[in-house]
């Protein structure tokens, strides 16, 4: 089998241009031969696609959001009646988008604040019970996408590292084995919890921390040359 022209590290250095579609022959050869990197770019591709579709969904929020926002801004005196520009007929002004008609007179900082408020409102609107299952799936998928490659890499390092511990101080070796088992168990329980309650941020934080702890433990072992 022909070896890839570059290694994983160099491939990762080319990840940004790769995701922008600029793919060198070396990188393509590496992706063909390395299942880990191939899986990673596939995951990143899925995330990018999902993010774009979510962004597209947010372009047009429901009309009631703008109505409510406009009423609030009028109460606070931040917007006035629509302005008709020089060389612009009232018909053209009316035909212009809702954005310009409502917000043309608002100072830019206020507009930014309003836009933010609108986004929050959209977020709230999207988080209704109808979309709960979709959101749950997204959370689970998102968590799996971010932790699966990490899990594979950590398990690989763990096998190598733990195998070389046989000649070390038995007390230290026993403690390391015990604590590695604790962390692995911790990861399993957190994964279950995230699966059961996908939107539970605390559970997800614990899962990420468990992976971090495992990585730290393995790094410590390698650093000590055990």
């Amino acid at each position, binding site marked *: 089998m022909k070896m890839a022209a570059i290694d994983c590290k160099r491939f990762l250095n080319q990840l940004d241009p790769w995701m922008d579609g600029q793919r060198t022959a070396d990188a393509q050869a590496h992706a063909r031969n390395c299942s880990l990197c191939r899986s990673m770019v596939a995951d990143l591709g899925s995330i990018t696609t999902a993010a774009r579709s979510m962004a597209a969904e947010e372009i047009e929020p429901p009309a009631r959001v703008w109505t409510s926002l406009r009423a609030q801004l009028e109460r606070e005196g931040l917007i006035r009646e629509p302005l008709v520009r020089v060389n612009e007929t009232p018909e053209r002004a009316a035909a212009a988008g809702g954005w310009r008609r409502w917000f043309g007179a608002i100072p830019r900082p206020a507009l930014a604040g309003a836009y933010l408020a609108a986004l929050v409102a959209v977020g709230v609107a999207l988080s209704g019970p109808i979309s709960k299952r979709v959101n749950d799936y997204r959370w689970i998928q998102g968590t799996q996408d971010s932790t699966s490659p990490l899990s594979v890499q950590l398990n690989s390092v763990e096998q190598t590292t733990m195998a070389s511990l046989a000649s070390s101080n038995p007390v*230290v070796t026993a403690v390391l084995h015990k604590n590695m088992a604790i962390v692995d168990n911790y990861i399993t329980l957190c994964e279950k919890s995230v699966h059961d309650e996908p939107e539970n941020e*605390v559970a997800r934080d614990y899962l990420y*921390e468990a992976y971090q702890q495992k990585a730290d433990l393995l790094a410590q072992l390698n650093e000590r040359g055990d």
Partner: protein
Amino acid sequence: MNTHHAVPRIWKSAGLLVPGFLLFGVASASAQRVEKHFKVEASPVVTIHNPNGTITVKAWTKSEVMVIATLGSGRVDLDAEQNGNRVDVMTRQITDSVAPDDLRADYQINVPQDSELQIHNDSGAVSVANVLGNMDVETIAADVDLQDAAGYLTIATVGGSFQCMRCAGHIEVNSISGSFRLMDTRSKHVRAQTSTGNILFSGDFLPSGEYRLKNYSGVIELRFLPGDSFDVTATSLKGKVNNQAKLTPPNHSYQSTSKYGQALVGSFNTAGHAHVDLTSFDGTINIVKRD
């Protein structure tokens, strides 16, 4: 004649040498004491690497670092050297294969009070008293005991416990299965995280201080005095939150089996709020009055 006289001289020499060799053999098989002194300036850095044994560090008033090593066998040696205002102490393995007990070295080290310490100890124990400089301690199985320490304290153990008596400064402690006891603490920043260990905090809540205690399972116990002042958030996803503090205002405090476990938010007294954040996945959180 020469031969006649020579024979007794040889035996005499042998008679002197044999006990000498025997003594050497006994000495190499048993503990050896080595003492070294290093003159230092203000705020020296002292690093200690020891695979197995106790490390006891105490502050003194001399501008000098004194290292007394008790080596477990002749198979290890003390490697101590000075580079400028830095003293590096290391247990060096002389032969390739050494039994764990032979690798043992115990250290008694005296340092100036403002020293910065970097300690790595796999198994045994680490004890530091009255050192006010920054401290970085890493162990696997060794317990860590600090007294009257200050500065930026960073402690990481895998399975070793951590105890801190009257510590000030900035405390960051992490472990997987080690338990922590932070007693009479006078720190403005405490961050303690362990997976399966217990955490006990009994100290001052300084104005605008931050106290974050987190574990996966086990017990987190926070002790308070009637005059303390803090805002507290306590969450246990699968476990319980028990509270003895009268939190105000009442509409800001709640305790329920919420969607994601038990949670509690509130303020205790009002002057100079400290921020307390207690989080557990499967453990119990106790907020209790201090005796």
